[in-house]
């Protein structure tokens, strides 16, 4: 858990150093954060919720903490001029709506961490909304790739 969080911390530091340089880099970073860190954390969590993997409280918490760090930074990775990739124009046209979707992700994640679910049955009602937040934001603020 610490190792993964540390790698994200390094990543975020790098991001802050680079954020002013080129918007292409930001676009690439937000893509990497989603594709690698967030998806990497979602997979074991989803597998447990689906009953395809034994429940492991430590892994659940690790995934949730990865989400929490990502959710704190991800919303800042869409500065003016960094349009492109799978980011929908709606992010820049409706910044308040996008921020609200980000907040939903943060809130759901924080609540799930606070609940620290010990069993699968405890996890379902608190982790479900976290996945719901993914979907909620993607539906409006992410476009399809070809």
């Amino acid at each position, binding site marked *: 858990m610490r190792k993964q969080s540390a790698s994200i911390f390094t990543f975020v530091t790098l991001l802050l150093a680079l954020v002013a340089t080129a918007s292409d880099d930001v676009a690439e970073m937000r893509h990497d954060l989603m594709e690698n860190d967030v*998806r990497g954390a979602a*997979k074991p969590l*989803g597998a447990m919720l689906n009953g395809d993997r034994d429940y492991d409280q430590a892994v659940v918490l690790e995934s949730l903490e990865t989400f929490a760090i990502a959710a704190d930074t991800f919303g800042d990775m869409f500065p003016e001029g960094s349009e492109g990739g799978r980011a929908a124009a709606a992010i820049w046209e409706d910044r308040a709506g996008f921020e609200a979707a980000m907040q939903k992700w943060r809130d759901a994640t924080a609540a799930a961490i606070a609940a620290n679910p010990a069993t699968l049955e405890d996890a379902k009602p608190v982790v479900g909304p976290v996945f719901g937040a993914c*979907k909620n934001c993607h539906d409006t603020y992410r476009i399809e*790739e070809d």
Partner: protein
Amino acid sequence: MKKTKALTLLAAAVLVAAWVTSPQTLSNDDLPDHAPDAVAGELVFWAGGCASCHATPVDGRRAKGDNKLLLGGGLELDTPFGLFRAPNISPSVTTGIGSWSMLEFVNAMQRGVAPDGRHYYPSFPYTSYARMSVADVMDLRAYLDTLPIVEQVVPDHSIAFPYSVRRGIGAWKRLNLDASAVIESSDELVERGRYLAEGAGHCGECHTPRGRFGGLLTDRWLSGAPNLDGDGYIPNITPAGKNTADWSQRNIARYLESGFTPDFDTVGGSMVAVQENLSKLPLSDLEAIAAYLKSVPAVARETDSNEET
């Protein structure tokens, strides 16, 4: 003499054309002895995805939540054939379909014919709905009657010649309106899935490529197609599909239920609305659709997305 013969030929040609293009409808005798059930009809409504086109957009975006039940129409489909505007199908007597008889509703859904006898454009997927049972269509009507009235006039489609000639759709229907199964199966679960996917679910309307005049190429069933209402490509969902080939039946059912891929990505594009609708069906129906999709012939997608045959 010659002139008379020519005129006779012309008259015969006109008669044949009139017959070829004339609307084919059902009569009251074709309606089964069935008491329409609005509760069953709600499931038909979600299976059919009616709201995806007919729910009035909110602030330029597709309707969500309870707004999906406000079927005032107005959504625009900008296609190579022209600009289609989804009509009002709320129970309003003046601007919706509240005044229609059950027979008129069934003929619209399954024969693509309006109460005034005009042909509907196949942007309204009656070629799929023709495969539904009449009883399901009747249940659907009963459910639609329970939804809120929306008073809204939707302008007509903007279609360019020759597609603007509605009689021409009659000839098109003779070639393309076929209520028989595309991929039949003797397996009960697969057959239920086929009924849902080929009928109400109208999966083929987006996922199957079309020929020059918009008819579905059933020998390339579900193998993916250019997106007619925007950019990009609608995926191949046969067992040869590049993204879904290794999905299990369970993976597919779960995706339809939750909107998450086996890789925990979320459903995207126009499939978002489809998945949200389908998630209201019983899991057994989603399993059936999944079983059907695993059973259809594996067909590679056409390599040139602009290809027309």
